[in-house]
């Protein structure tokens, strides 16, 4: 009986994602170093923004700017980051509720952290319109 075969297989593609009006506002905002949210008809501000109220599916009312500083709602510290992750040193994943927003967004935090910590976006020197234009959040 012979050994069954194995071989490496790579699934690789650079997906070209068109954004539509709402995400265009968000990503253009990132490039311009600001964070855009979407205000629902009930007045809640969703960040990152969606064209719809996530609770009901209704169209949102308008786009609004929110702060690039906010509060950590929950976090997890990772000692051994994986190669594709945003930082190559130990960091924390966190859900961050930015000032002016009613929902929290996922990003990474570099530095001491606990629930309730205030953190602020650290922008990359060169921003291009991508979620990693925020290199990470750091203690405010």
């Amino acid at each position, binding site marked *: 009986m012979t050994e*069954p075969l194995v071989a490496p297989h790579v699934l*690789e593609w650079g997906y070209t994602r068109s954004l539509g009006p709402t995400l265009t506002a968000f*990503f253009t905002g990132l490039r311009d170093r600001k964070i855009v949210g979407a205000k629902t008809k009930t007045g809640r501000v969703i960040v990152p923004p969606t064209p719809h109220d996530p609770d009901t599916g209704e169209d949102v009312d308008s786009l609004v700017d929110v702060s690039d500083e906010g509060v950590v709602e929950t976090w997890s510290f990772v000692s051994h980051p994986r190669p594709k992750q945003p930082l190559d040193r130990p960091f924390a994943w966190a859900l961050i509720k930015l000032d002016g927003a009613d929902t929290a967004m996922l990003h990474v935090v570099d530095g001491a952290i606990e629930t309730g910590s205030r953190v602020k976006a650290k922008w990359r020197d060169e921003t291009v319109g991508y979620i990693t234009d925020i290199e990470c959040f750091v203690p405010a």
Partner: protein
Amino acid sequence: MSEDVTGIVVPIHLDYTYTPGVAASRFLRHIAEGNYVGQRCPKCKKVYVPPRGSCPTCGVPTDEEVELKQTGTITAFCIVNIPFAGQAVECPYVSATIQLDGADIGFYHLIQEIPYDQIHIGMRVEAVWKPREEWGTTTESIAHFKPTDA
């Protein structure tokens, strides 16, 4: 003012370890030795090559190995003129389903050594192997099929 960001490119790279399976591995080991070995379904007695582990109509394992001749018949073909990512050969080429003598199903391979306009369904063909040192556990060990001299 710069223009709006209306699109992003998200690179995806995923690594897998592919396992063709027990039956396919056996088939490919035989190919590396220069043999076409199919498997017979214990229920319907049909011979599958390449075997994929099960008889697709009976849903049972095909364990019995059957060594096949390296001659067969073209059951369908097409002339490919369109280049695509990951392509193995240059255009134009002829991809055909070939049913080996003793097998009950055709598989895809290249037809060469004949002008394309002379290829027809029912044509008799035989395997042309690459040089021995290039054989391996892949059906690319067979360079192509060509019309039989007969």
